[in-house]
């Protein structure tokens, strides 16, 4: 297979404009003749469904949540980037573009990232018009803060609840379309398969999570906005229900999966406290604006942190990266923390953390100022740990957080299956090998509000007058039979171990061998262990209850089954990529100082994998990346 990214010709600053001029349009009166399925109603999906509905398309939106407002986007804390340059501190579209490409360790597609930076400002305008209560200064204008990997203040925020407020904005815009009748919303409906016909995406099969009813839905195009797959690790900062099944099912139907090994481990999460921990809680990156990270100079220092004198502390990020200090990108900060803990310098009861200390900031700005900025995060921390972060430093440790990999998409955000689009965290597009903080909200909303609604007509326009196959077409009945077979199969195993047990085992394998540091032997071991565990799952998982009611174990079992296949592909991709780039750190490839060492001659490309069956090797197709505007360089934050 050849991958054509469909990058428009011409100077980078003009590509998006000229592309919008070149795409085929559907005239306003004809839009209602087209139906579009949007799976997922997080930031990406809700913004897309709302906008497509406003344009006049007939939209069917699906979420497995009981309300769109519960999507995982709601949990995003710190903020959203935009090149507004409201602070006159040297920001520009080009700088946001440059920072994002560099932050991604030169593994993203320049044209997409440039467009992202171009539309970033409009997102802030749009959200403000919807009533998103962004933080303001006393003069009434919008406030900004800084995030990692940038030396300007371009992050807009709503206390520590930016994702919540942006999602409510998008959800409410979609609710208006539901009211108008242009969006038909299906909650508690989980997509369990993609339906293709003649090589095109024509619909989906869903299961109603309340009644267990399996149904088919057909449309002219299908958009997947189903989020990321960090929960492959079991313990992550993602909501419990986040999963890979929608894009994995699409992958099995022909959509190539790009860079699955690019996973982001976030440096500031609350460390695991016991073996029953169900998830890890993020402490927003924004805290690194005012918090200072340190460990004791001596290993196994048992004293409480406040008794350790200044000269007995190692503020290792400030020491190693004076230019960016505590605000180095996430991959760099996470690896540095791992290094400290591996060297025996970890703190806390399990020796599994480093300190994030606000004493200096509280001294300088006062407790009230810190409370106004981060109050809800401090409260959450106190709730979870039982410690008061105003009085003692927070304990933090890296945790799986975000996945840069996802379905391969072209400049139009279409996957390799015609008519199938992927937006938001579900696609691979803009973050290369490492995402900068506050850029996921930006990308999800760019895709949903501004990109997809402008590109989808290019695919739809030639289909005017063509009806998608009806739901009694064999393509649908076959997909329904497959789904029913899978559901019944899981219920029929009647083994001895719970779904969560298997998921924890899988997570541990991935964390140990495909986490913050990877090497050949470990990855090979992981692949064989995952295969063995998958076989055990198929013969020994225990899912009680039936398929015709609400059955949470059954839902989870289906998702974990897909995580096994994905987990293996993550390891294969990590094994293939014999370089270190961003979040992907191969121990064999590092500089003398332990920084990631890329191999641009061999790997300045996207690795897109094709499905060949559960027991056959996947096939690899590469998209060569061209860097014409950003010079490839060893990243330096010193």
């Amino acid at each position, binding site marked *: 297979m050849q991958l054509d990214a469909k990058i428009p010709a011409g100077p980078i600053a003009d590509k998006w404009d000229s592309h919008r001029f070149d795409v085929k349009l559907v005239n306003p009166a004809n839009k209602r003749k087209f139906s579009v399925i949007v799976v997922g109603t997080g930031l990406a999906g809700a913004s897309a469904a709302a906008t497509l509905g406003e344009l006049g398309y007939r939209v069917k939106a699906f979420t497995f949540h009981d309300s769109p407002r*519960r999507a995982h986007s709601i949990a995003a804390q710190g903020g959203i980037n935009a090149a507004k340059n409201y602070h006159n501190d040297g920001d520009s579209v080009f700088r946001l573009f440059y920072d994002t490409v560099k932050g991604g360790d030169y593994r993203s597609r320049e044209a997409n990232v440039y467009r992202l930076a171009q539309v970033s400002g409009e997102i802030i305008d749009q959200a*403000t018009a919807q*009533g998103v209560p962004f933080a303001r200064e006393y003069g009434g*204008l919008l406030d900004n803060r800084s995030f990692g990997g940038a030396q300007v203040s371009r992050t807009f925020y709503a206390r520590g609840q930016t994702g*919540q407020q942006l999602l409510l904005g998008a959800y*409410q815009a979609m609710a*208006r379309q539901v*009211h108008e009748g242009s969006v038909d919303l299906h909650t508690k409906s989980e997509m369990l398969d993609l339906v293709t016909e003649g090589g095109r995406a024509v619909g989906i099969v869903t299961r109603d999570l309340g009644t267990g009813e399996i149904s088919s839905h057909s449309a002219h195009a299908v958009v997947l906005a189903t989020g990321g797959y960090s929960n492959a690790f079991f313990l992550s900062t993602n*909501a419990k229900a986040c999963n890979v099944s929608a894009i994995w099912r699409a992958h099995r139907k022909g959509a190539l999966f790009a860079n699955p090994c690019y996973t982001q481990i976030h440096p500031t999460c609350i460390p695991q406290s016991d073996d029953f921990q169900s998830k890890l809680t993020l402490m927003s990156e924004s805290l690194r604006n005012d918090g200072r990270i340190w460990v004791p100079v001596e290993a196994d220092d048992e004293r409480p942190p406040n008794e350790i004198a200044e000269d007995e502390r190692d503020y290792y990020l400030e020491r190693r990266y004076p230019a960016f200090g505590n605000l180095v990108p996430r991959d760099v900060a996470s690896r540095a923390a791992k290094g400290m803990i591996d060297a025996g310098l970890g703190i806390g009861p399990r020796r599994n953390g480093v300190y994030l200390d606000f004493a200096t900031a509280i001294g300088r700005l006062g407790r009230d100022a810190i409370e106004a900025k981060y109050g809800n995060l401090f409260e959450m921390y106190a709730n979870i740990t039982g410690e008061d972060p105003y009085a003692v430093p927070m304990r933090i440790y890296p945790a799986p957080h975000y996945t840069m990999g996802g379905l391969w998409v072209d400049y139009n955000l279409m996957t390799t299956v015609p008519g199938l689009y992927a937006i938001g965290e579900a696609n691979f597009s803009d973050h290369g090998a490492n995402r900068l903080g506050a850029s996921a909200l930006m990308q999800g909303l760019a895709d949903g509000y501004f990109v997809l609604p402008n590109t989808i007509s290019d695919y739809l326009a030639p289909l005017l007058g063509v009806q998608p196959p009806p739901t009694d077409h064999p393509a649908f009945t076959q997909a329904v039979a497959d789904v029913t077979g899978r559901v019944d199969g899981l219920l029929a195993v009647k083994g001895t171990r719970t779904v969560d047990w298997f998921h924890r085992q899988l997570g541990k394998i991935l964390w140990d061998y495909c986490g913050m540091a990877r090497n050949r032997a470990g990855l090979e071991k992981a692949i064989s262990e995952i295969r063995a565990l998958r076989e055990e799952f198929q013969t020994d998982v225990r899912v*009680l209850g039936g398929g015709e009611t609400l059955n949470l174990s059954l839902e989870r079992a289906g998702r974990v089954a897909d995580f096994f296949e994905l987990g293996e592909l993550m390891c294969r991709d990590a094994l293939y990529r014999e370089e270190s780039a961003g979040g992907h750190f191969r121990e064999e490839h590092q500089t003398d100082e332990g920084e990631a060492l890329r191999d641009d001659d061999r790997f300045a490309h996207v690795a897109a994998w094709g499905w060949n069956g559960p027991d056959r090797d996947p096939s690899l197709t590469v998209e060569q990346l061209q860097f014409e505007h950003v010079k490839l360089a060893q990243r330096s934050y010193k």
Partner: protein
Amino acid sequence: MDLTLKVWRQDGPQDAGRFETYSAESISEDMSFLEMLDVVNERLVEEGTEPIAFDSDCREGICGTCGLMIDGQAHGPQRATATCQLHMRSYRDGDEITIEPWRAAAFPIMKDLVVDRSPFDRIVEAGGFITAPTGSAPDANLIPVPKEDSDLAFEAAACIGCGACVAACPNGAAQLFTAAKLAHLNLLPQGQPERYQRTEAMVDEMESYFGSCTNHGECQAACPKDISIDFIALLNRDYGKAKFSGRRKRAD
């Protein structure tokens, strides 16, 4: 610590339901309440009993998915805390804990501790938005918003839609939920053009599902986000104005 749980079990919407007693053993105080239930569920499955169905997702207190009546209190004993953020250090060895679903006419039970809260979405669909089609927005700094107004709007907007206010209300009213959304939008300059129309539509929709507010104030006490009942006063005032101007329009 070891605990005894009395848990509401109900096979489906039509089932009558009953309490079952389970023991929760070797629970650590660092666990969250839901992790304690996870442990109980793992054991139930091992014993061949169907696990207790309960809703949760982010487990960070922001998605609003979880919500249990714990010893008769919505989200349990800790003030301004969602169930998922309640930790077992609030309990002592030997405690007996009663766990029920939200009980409200507008929230039918789907199974065990899971209820259907979709009427909240209907209220938002009726008018809980500012009409601003994508692409039509002016520059974000064109309309300065006084910081106090924007902060107050934010406090209302912090509602997580969990339904604790309804479950805690003796009348099963949804005034606090509706008032929070109205205050968020009605306090901002962007929300002014549709202010009264929005208020009327949302309140009327609310009344078609939920009971009436008689100022018990239980909603505020149960709210995990500490949303103030003062917003209900704003709702009442705006609703009065909306009805008044509506009557005037009809009379013209």
